């Protein structure tokens, strides 16, 4: 096919995908549209752009606090999952573990767990432990939910690392911790990045548990703040659009910038069977 036709085909594909992303762009436009023009369509395009909605969201709503909560909870969830997950994945991949087959089965089964199944007992548990409306409660629940997938992915990545590297370290007299630090983790870095990315996204986007276990702005995460966005009497579409943009900004930035790791992670989860 000629180069020009090729370029045209490429452009068409990109145009089609840009069209696919129209809902996102429409919401972006809505967030800058003046209030009076929101419900008077057509015309679709605003006469002028305004930052009023963002101002309202940032100064008057609970979104900024929710952003902080989400960032903190997602980061700590990722950290906790990795800290617990790396040793477990290593054990599953390399070490002689009693009952390994059963454990693997349990881990695979856990990835299919529906959240609705455990939300009622967890609600009672959180209530008894006074962990409702705390970061800790949500982090523990998120981490335990993310752990099975984390272990599965990391085990796959670990298996890819040639065992010779560890054996060489053992010959040099390194203990387990040292092998971890100096040999394994550096080689595992891309896999860690992929797993961390997926875990962070899961925690950031998680709604069901967050909705049930958060009370006030002390622990409310972004999805919950958005779902509970208060209206005066009317639904404030412009403000909601602005809040939506702010809510998706961190995950979108991360995902688009770290595309490579995302693809790698998704593939690893699927291909390493």
């Amino acid at each position, binding site marked *: 096919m000629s180069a020009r036709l090729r370029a045209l085909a490429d452009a068409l594909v990109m145009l089609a995908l840009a069209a696919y992303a129209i809902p996102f762009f429409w919401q972006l436009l809505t967030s800058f549209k003046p209030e009076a023009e929101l419900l008077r369509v057509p015309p679709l395009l605003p006469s002028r752009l305004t930052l009023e909605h963002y101002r309202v969201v940032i100064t008057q709503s*609970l979104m900024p606090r929710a952003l902080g909560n989400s960032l903190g909870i997602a980061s700590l969830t990722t950290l906790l999952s990795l800290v617990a997950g790396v040793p477990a994945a290593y054990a599953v991949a390399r070490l002689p573990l009693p009952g390994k087959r059963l454990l693997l089965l349990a881990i695979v089964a856990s990835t299919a767990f529906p959240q609705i199944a455990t939300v009622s007992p967890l609600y009672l548990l959180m209530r008894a432990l006074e962990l409702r409306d705390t970061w800790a409660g949500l982090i523990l629940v998120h981490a335990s939910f993310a752990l099975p997938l984390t272990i599965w992915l990391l085990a796959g990545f670990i298996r890819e690392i040639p065992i010779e590297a560890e054996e060489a370290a053992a010959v040099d007299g390194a203990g387990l*911790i040292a092998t971890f630090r100096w040999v394994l983790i550096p080689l595992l870095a891309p896999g860690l990045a992929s797993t961390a990315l997926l875990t962070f996204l899961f925690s950031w986007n998680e709604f069901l548990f967050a909705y049930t276990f958060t009370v006030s702005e*002390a622990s409310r995460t972004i999805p919950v703040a958005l779902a509970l966005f*208060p209206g005066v009497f*009317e639904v404030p579409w412009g403000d909601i659009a602005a809040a939506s943009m702010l809510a998706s900004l961190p995950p979108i930035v991360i995902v688009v910038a770290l595309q490579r790791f995302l693809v790698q992670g998704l593939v690893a989860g699927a291909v390493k069977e």
Partner: protein
Amino acid sequence: MSAGVRLAALIGLLALGGCVARQESGPVTLVFKYARILGNADPLPGLLREFEAAHPGVRVRAEALPWTSDDQHQFYVINLEGRSPGFDLMMLDCIWVPEFARAGWLLDLTSRLGPDELAPYFPSAVASATYDGRVWALPWNFNVGLLYYRTDLLTRYGLRPPQTFEELVEQVRRIRAGERDPSLDGYVWQGKQYEGLVVNVLEAFWAGGTGLLAGDGTLFPDPARAAEALRFLRGLIESGVSPAWTTAADEELSRRAFGDGHAIFLRNWPYAMDLFESPGSVVRGKVAFASLPGRAHGQRGVGSTGGAHLGISRRSLHPVLALALARHLSSEPAQRAIALGAALSPTRPALYRDPAIVREHPAMPELLRLSLAGHPRPVTPYYLLLSATVQPEFSAALVGVKRPERAIADAGKRLGYFLQAVR
């Protein structure tokens, strides 16, 4: 365990503990949960600052509740049951008070109120704040279902506000035939699957001479009449008297349609009048309200009463201050400010004849008459259970996926099963 692991565990526990601990230092902060008040000027911040000025060292943090009544209820239920609610004063829909009182989430105010403190309020408002002979909340604002109508259109055709729905249907037909405006709807009301739907259906039940709960607690004492009322509502949509989007309409969607001049009749709460009379409104000066119509072979029309109360969480750390704030907000000056600045009606009958308020809202005395004639929804701790269970059934009948008789029968069966556990 190696020292390294032990250290890590300790740090981990401390970090978690730090996350759990909550701020206790600083001035006393009262948390007040409410649904934001609309109006030309929101009087609430001013009232709260007044309170803070009168009580040095006390800050009031006002937090808005979620959007709909059902979401607000779910929010309260999840958090009050979770035992650490984190708020002191709550704005409660009057239908929740018996349930919350029964569940033990509200502070019993009976002994804390003066002997005649509740006398200036509407008796029905006080009744809905009372459960088991004790008082659990202070009435704050009052609502009653009204029929709004376009005075200009009715006058043009020499019509008076309809006494029955059959009259209303006929008037709609005449006016639409005369106006020949395809975008003019007849009667808009709330048919979306939420609490508002139950209100509309209950009003239809009452006009038909039946109800949801009989005096002795029987569910659907007259299922045939209830089904007929439902069928009538469905008929309004099918025949085009009400637009198809009624099944997705809440208070705001219907108010907007009427306020943009696209409807002849509207069923809504008193707050809407203020918005219709605001400068720039398309229907300014062309709207009045009347009692809801009855049925030709049924009862007189009657509007459902509603409104909000102020309740105090039993787990509040500052019950005395919270009660002081509640008293401040439902005091006569505060209610006057709210009635003038916002669109909420007072719970004190005296204010409906207050010169300042009547000047602003000339229809207040008429509203008082209608408020006193209003009918409450069933005052029972099981009301929310009832409502949540019948909402999908009523909605199914309204959109036409279920026959009304079937909807009533299914609703009765489900309610029977759920209430069996509690009664």
